[in-house]
């Protein structure tokens, strides 16, 4: 059974190895400062924690900022760590690339760049993957083209749910991004 690492213990180890790298820990993940991300990951992969397998890499739009989510796995010791880093700037987000540490980050970072518009500093081949060059906007951002008349993320209720009529939802007009 894969063990989920104790976040507080990992955070303390990281703080010892890379000072000021972990500003805080939330319920699910150790949050690493973007400026220290590469150093921190190098430590996690190289130390006794042996987190040398990048299981998954993705990003979440939190409207005011972006969260990059990394799932790091150790195959020998069979434990898993969720690591997050924050890209504060919502207009032109940028975080360091992990391609130097993990070959498997190449395609996943390209995917995040394509759909979320997050730049990965140091990625050798950062270009759009699914969409074509010149596609206006980044579709997985929350401010990209809301579909009128459908549910959208963060809505208060189900259609026809009992209680007050919450349908249709005011303010769900589409916003077409300008290229």
């Amino acid at each position: 059974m894969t063990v989920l690492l104790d976040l507080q213990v990992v955070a303390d180890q990281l703080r010892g190895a890379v000072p000021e790298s972990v500003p805080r820990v939330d319920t699910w993940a150790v949050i690493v400062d973007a400026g220290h991300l590469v150093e921190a990951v190098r430590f996690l992969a190289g130390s006794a924690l042996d987190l040398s397998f990048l299981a998954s890499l993705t990003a979440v739009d939190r409207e005011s900022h972006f969260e990059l989510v990394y799932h790091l796995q150790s195959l020998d010791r069979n434990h898993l760590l969720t690591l997050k880093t924050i890209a504060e700037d919502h207009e032109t987000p940028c975080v360091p690339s992990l391609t130097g540490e993990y070959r498997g980050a190449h395609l996943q970072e390209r995917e995040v760049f394509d759909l979320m518009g997050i730049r990965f500093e140091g990625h050798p081949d950062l270009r759009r993957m699914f969409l074509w060059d010149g596609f206006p906007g980044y579709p997985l951002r929350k401010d990209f083209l809301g579909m009128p008349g459908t549910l959208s993320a963060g809505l208060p209720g189900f259609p026809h749910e009992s209680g007050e009529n919450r349908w249709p939802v005011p303010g769900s007009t589409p916003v077409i991004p300008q290229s």
Partner: protein
Amino acid sequence: MAIETPKRVHSEPVVVNIGPQHPSTHGVFRLKATLDGEIVQDVDMLIGYLHRSMEKLAEERTFTQNIPFTDRIDYLAAMSNNLSYCLAVEKLAGIEVPLRGQWLRVLFAELQRIASHAMANGTFVNDCGAWQTPLMYMFREREKILDLFEMTCGARLTTNYMRIGGVAFDPPLELWPALCSLLDEMPDRLEEYAALTVDNEIVLARSKGVGVVSAEAALNASLSGPLLRGSGVPWDLRKADPYCVYDQLDFDIPVGRDGDCYDRFRVRLEEVRQSVRILNQVVERIPGGPWQAEVPLHLRPAAGEAYARIESPRGELGFYVVSDGGPTPWRFHCRAPSLINLSALKEMTVGRSLADAIVTLGSIDIVVGEIDR
């Protein structure tokens, strides 16, 4: 006077497009190869022809409404995709699945693995040059499995069978004799496949030593599934991080030695045998009782996030689902093994002939719906 011939003649680089529509790409997938003579110097993949923006669409539908999308992500292993997504939402909402539901999930996930591996091995032998005949042999059993799916949930390919909290239906009584007769004939059929393909000269000549990826490179490139096991790493999430009732089942993890296309093919063939072993145990031991938990119609998982993964026929299939407490997921991400298994494509193909690149692509077993989503 002896004429000296240079060891290797270089030519102008030639760019060859394989795809978007090409029999060896198994979907709408374009591989741009730069060739020096016949030797591949560089490959670049141009994808997105099948991009249906599943992850965006899923943010506008409820958690339950998203299950049919997962069928269409990997249309050759719909059951596995259903399962992985449902596990993620159950983790998020804290739902316990009744025992019979868990066993039924294992039953259909393993049937799906056999069907998917039959397709993978059939098309792989196809790519090696044994045109169509072995594929038809492998399709024979796949067909019977799809009949079992149809019997249970009415659909053959996009099954939409798993539900949050269990499975949609209990299988009909006529499923069990049909399943038992299939399991009885499987060992003979597997012998037949092995006799046809394992020592087949075409397969050996085309796939031995082709598309080699070392264990270190495979780990660094986040490869998973038969690719990783073909390189000799005994990593299978059914053993390493057991979900459903896999921890109560007895099976082995086959591994390869050289990490070449032939080893991946052998690993898949052996995995089918292990799946038959698992299915025999499931038929013997499946308990009675309810197959679905009681889940609120208006399911609103508390704000939070969950990452659940399973060993799909293609590798580690994970779903990362974020909820903000509302009726729809705030973020729905699929960790697609088909896409990530292509991370090492360049290392596998560069420096060998173009014909080998085709075999290598076949051995990765991509499903373009899963790459593009």
